[in-house]
């Protein structure tokens, strides 16, 4: 569960765990690792996790952060769950597009849009 050093804000809505990043820059490798560990713990806490990642506050990320998101996506899939991404800044969305990861992830304009796709 998130500790005092948590890099995430976590909430529950109708069985969906929504997480929001507290960092504007997801760049530092140690922080990316910490975020990955926190997300993994959230996934492990549910039998069929429904996870929504809200990017509203994120201005920058790196390829290392994308790698961690792929690990998280695999972990959710392995547990029979669903992962959605939402509220991605246009500049960051372009990174997903350039890397073609917009085809690997289910990306939605808003958290409300994403919440409607879990059932």
């Amino acid at each position: 569960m998130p500790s005092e050093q948590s890099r995430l804000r976590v909430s529950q809505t109708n069985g969906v765990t929504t997480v929001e990043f507290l960092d504007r820059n997801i760049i530092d490798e140690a922080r990316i690792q910490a975020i990955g560990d926190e997300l993994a713990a959230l996934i492990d806490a549910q039998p069929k996790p429904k996870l929504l990642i809200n990017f509203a506050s994120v201005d920058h990320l790196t390829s290392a952060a994308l790698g961690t998101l792929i690990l998280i996506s695999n972990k959710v899939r392995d547990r029979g769950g669903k992962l959605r991404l939402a509220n991605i800044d246009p500049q960051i969305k372009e990174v997903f597009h350039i890397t073609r990861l917009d085809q690997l992830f289910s990306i939605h304009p808003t958290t409300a849009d994403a919440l409607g796709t879990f059932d």
Partner: protein
Amino acid sequence: MPATGHNQHAEHWVELRNHRAEIDAVEDRVLDLVDRFSYPRPSRFAIKLSLEEAIINAFKHGHEGLDPATSIRVGYTVAADRVLIFVEDQGPGFTPADVPDPTLDENLANTSGRGLMLMRAYMSEVWHNERGNRVGMLYRRPPDSTP
């Protein structure tokens, strides 16, 4: 004829170790100059992303197997019309052509290997020295964004 980065030299060089504070310091120096020349937001994003990816590649891949205290050098020139950046590690170098294309279907789920392609996507030019331990990157200011 537009300037190419290959024959240009960086005005400033900084040596840094793999410590977040040192990486942030050099990124802040470059981005402070970028801001002084009033580059638009997408340019700032492109330069920050490419510089970060190049530095991480140097420490993570360039220095793989070396003493973690081994330093890299970052060279930069920021002008009104262009930003030139070099990142040089002390490793044996690599062959850029050997890096798999991360956008191919079979590589899409790989958890690493996207740094170089992002640098190529966001910068105007990216090149390596023959040994493969120094990357050069040139960003040309978009024509419609003069301050």
